[in-house]
């Protein structure tokens, strides 16, 4: 399970091109879904209007070097999910984010660079399994214990709503991917293997095909907002008060 390319067995039934085309289609679905989401929410208009307001209210000009520095700080903050104020949510998001990057990257490399061969560098299937497991651990932790509507708003841990479309399809996709990989390498049961593969593809397609309706695009919007906020603080147009220069804590 940890050493074989899980996508090799598929080439017994159809050419490697099929999975490659599927990945390209899913990539296009993400791009298209994000653009539709931007159009639907009016995000581009929102950011343009906010930038115009920020420029009009600016008390100082931000230099190009400073802008680059703010962009770097934003990327550094996003890399450690620094925007979260509570460590459990931050940790679960980090597990899902890095697990997702590892899982997607190794999937693409195995499908495109090693089509039809089971003997790939051992690190690839190992990382694929580790990435999927990270998503599963972070996702289940978030889903059952950290979802704010469950933890604070009285919803059942099994409550499903539109806000769960992204995390739910992500968890189901990697869970069935791992189950499919395990069953095809451990048991010679073609029926179970095909059922699990079908579920894996169904939830993966749902994950990438439902971007317009799910929270998938929040991973693009959040850094954009964080960057805009940093620019507003730097050019003096932020609506937030300046941090106090005095400390009133005088006694422990």
């Amino acid at each position, binding site marked *: 399970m940890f050493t074989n390319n899980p996508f090799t067995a598929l080439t017994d039934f159809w050419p490697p091109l099929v999975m490659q085309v599927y990945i390209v289609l899913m990539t296009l679905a993400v791009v298209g879904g994000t653009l539709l989401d931007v159009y639907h929410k009016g995000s581009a208009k929102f950011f343009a209007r906010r930038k115009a307001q920020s420029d009009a209210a600016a008390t100082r000009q931000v230099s190009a070097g400073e802008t680059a520095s703010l962009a770097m700080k934003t990327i550094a903050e996003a890399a450690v999910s620094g925007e979260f104020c509570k460590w459990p949510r931050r940790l679960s998001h980090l597990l899902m984010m890095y697990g997702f990057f590892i899982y997607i990257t190794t999937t693409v490399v195995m499908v495109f660079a090693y089509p039809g061969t089971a003997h790939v560098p051992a690190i690839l299937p190992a990382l694929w399994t580790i990435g999927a497991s990270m998503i599963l651990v972070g996702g289940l932790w978030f889903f059952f214990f950290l979802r704010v509507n469950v933890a604070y708003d009285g919803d059942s841990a099994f409550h499903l709503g539109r806000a769960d479309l992204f995390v739910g399809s992500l968890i189901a996709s990697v869970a069935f991917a791992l189950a499919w990989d395990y069953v095809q390498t451990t048991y010679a049961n073609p029926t179970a293997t095909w059922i699990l593969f079908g579920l894996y593809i169904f939830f993966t397609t749902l994950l990438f095909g439902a971007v317009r309706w799910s929270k998938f695009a929040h991973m693009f919007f959040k850094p954009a907002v964080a960057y805009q906020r940093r620019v507003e603080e730097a050019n003096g147009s932020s609506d937030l008060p300046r*941090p106090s220069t005095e400390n009133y804590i005088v006694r422990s």
Partner: protein
Amino acid sequence: MPTYTDMTRCDGCGECVDICPSDIMHIDPVYRRSYNIEPNFCWECYSCVKACPQNAIDVRGYADFAPLGHKVRVLREPEKGVISWKIRYRDGRLKEFAFPIRTTPWGSIKPPQDYEKPDLSAIGSQMLAHEPEALHIDALPTINKTKA
């Protein structure tokens, strides 16, 4: 003038849902961010505004201190014991206010159950429970009747 959440700032932590005394701050089922479900029932206590760690909740101030079209934002700095407010008026003027809110570190106040249970004989004392130590003084001031 009720509160509203800037969804681009909100990270869905739930602090406002937890603190709202009217139970009207809830979680949006589509974006999983907080929102005020019933602005008519908001009594403008500003609890959520001050509790939000992301400064994502805005509130419109009363017309007697800020005419319509303004913004009121708050910055809570518990580590400094201060809350600061900034009003941006519709004509562009800005006013900032900083209010000291406490002199002891956040979370440092001992809850009643952490104090030793008073002796029954204390019921005959003029002192309230745990006075004067709880007041951080040696003794309560008394009136010197010879000088009065």
